[in-house]
């Protein structure tokens, strides 16, 4: 579903994303982990076409993000770090607008909007103005706009940041539900970024760890925590040893060594 090859993004001298490659298969749920400033948001923005890569490319559902950007974007549902909402619109109008932008055919638009609202628990607030909703509900609207066109790939950037513990549980539940196969088909392919380890353990089956722009770890969650190791320890160890290697002039081998 996602095929990223050598993604690199430079901001002047700063290399925000450094030669990152990975593949995500259909129906996989990947936790994209890394400390703040690691390059998670930048990687996701490249995949969604919001910022162009300096180098490398990616395919989403078989469509190259540079050669066929519109088709690639049609296959993606994206929840940015701050949900892209118009505070003056009501929930149903907003989602209908997004459905139009995402090329949901006119005849199917109402059904798509109703379904997204139902899945995200928004049916009761469909006529409420978005600006009057609580942060948790706004996050749900953000999630609903990401799934309204039933995309093959979901890219969620820190979907629970800034929420209270109860809201966090609700949103995690929603995401887990989206990932599960529905109505007989396979579920959405999901990449979800976070720096909260518990989130990954709660939802994801695969972990990808990024640090200082480089991918340092990638594997099934079960494997990483196989010998009773806690994810937190793995995270800390790999991140720290990677930093030590980097300052000692080392290269990506650090990741292999740590594994």
């Amino acid at each position, binding site marked *: 579903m996602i095929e990223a090859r050598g993604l690199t993004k430079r901001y002047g001298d700063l290399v925000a994303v450094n030669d990152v490659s990975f593949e995500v298969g259909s129906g996989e749920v990947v936790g994209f982990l890394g400390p703040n400033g690691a390059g998670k948001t930048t990687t996701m923005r490249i995949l969604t076409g*919001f910022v162009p890569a300096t180098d490398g490319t990616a395919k989403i559902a078989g469509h190259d993000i540079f050669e066929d950007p519109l*088709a690639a974007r049609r296959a993606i549902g994206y929840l940015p770090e701050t949900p892209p909402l118009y505070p003056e619109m009501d929930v149903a109008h907003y989602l209908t607008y997004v459905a139009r932008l995402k090329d949901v055919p006119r005849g199917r638009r109402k059904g798509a909007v109703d379904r997204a609202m139902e899945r995200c628990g928004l049916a009761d607030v469909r006529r409420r103005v978005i600006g009057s909703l609580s942060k948790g509900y706004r996050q749900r609207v953000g999630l609903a706009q990401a799934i309204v066109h039933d995309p093959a790939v979901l890219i969620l950037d820190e979907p629970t940041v800034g929420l209270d513990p109860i809201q966090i549980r609700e949103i995690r539940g929603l995401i887990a539900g989206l990932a599960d196969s529905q109505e007989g088909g396979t579920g959405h392919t999901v990449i979800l970024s976070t720096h909260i380890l518990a989130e990954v353990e709660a939802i994801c089956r695969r972990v990808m760890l990024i640090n200082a722009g480089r991918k340092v770890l990638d594997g099934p969650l079960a494997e990483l925590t196989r010998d009773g190791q806690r994810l937190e320890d793995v995270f800390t160890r790999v991140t720290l040893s990677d930093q030590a290697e980097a300052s000692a002039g080392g290269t990506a081998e650090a990741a292999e060594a740590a594994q």
Partner: protein
Amino acid sequence: MRHVGAIAGRELRSMFVSPVAYAILTLFAIVAGFFFLASVLGFDAQVAEAQQFRAFDYLRQLNLNDHVIAPFYGIMWIVLLFLVPGITMGLFASEKTNGTQELLMTSPITIWELVIGKFLAASLFVLLLVGMVGIFTGILFFFGDPELPKAASGLLGLTLVALSYVAVGSFASSVTRNQLIAFFLSLVLLLILWMLSIVADLGAGGGAIASDGLVSRSMRWLSSADRFEQMVRGLVDTKDLAYFGFMIGTFLILTKASIESVRWR
């Protein structure tokens, strides 16, 4: 171009849920009404004076087109120059502060669809304002008999000037995320465009630039003032129509380029 309607529709809807749109419409109606009345009363006074002094030659020259409609349009043009930046300042800047830019730029739409949709929305709003000017002018036809073609070509001129201002304002809104900066940037651009012909006149008068030199001529060419006045006098020239098309096109292309360049920064 199938997303243009969605983008323009959302923009207009958002304009009309905010009280600002109604405030602008009301304010414009009041201001237009005031200046319309002032022009009519001024005309009345001139006629009365001419009759009193039996200045029949002068009286014969007085007519609604040149002495009511033309000054009225002229003032409305200045009012629009200050009002259009307020209408366009949020077009793109607010998408950036909302974070909705990220939705737009990751949707399967083209930047042209976005730019045209925004331009259309603001243009429709501005056409409402120009429409009011048209309604006031229409009142004159009940009480006198101004020349319709002249009144219509002047209104066309006002429309084209206003649309070119919308294009300039769109560009200003696309280069910043701050609406206030967008407002002042478009105001400054519009004032510069407006003053070009005056500066050309002054420069030529003072001998600083040759009145038929390249500098003076290109300044004049870029300025919309002379063209607008031609149209108020009832002279519709394809060259002037092409000029407004050129200005609108240029600033929309600049808008698109500025949105793209943010992407490639």
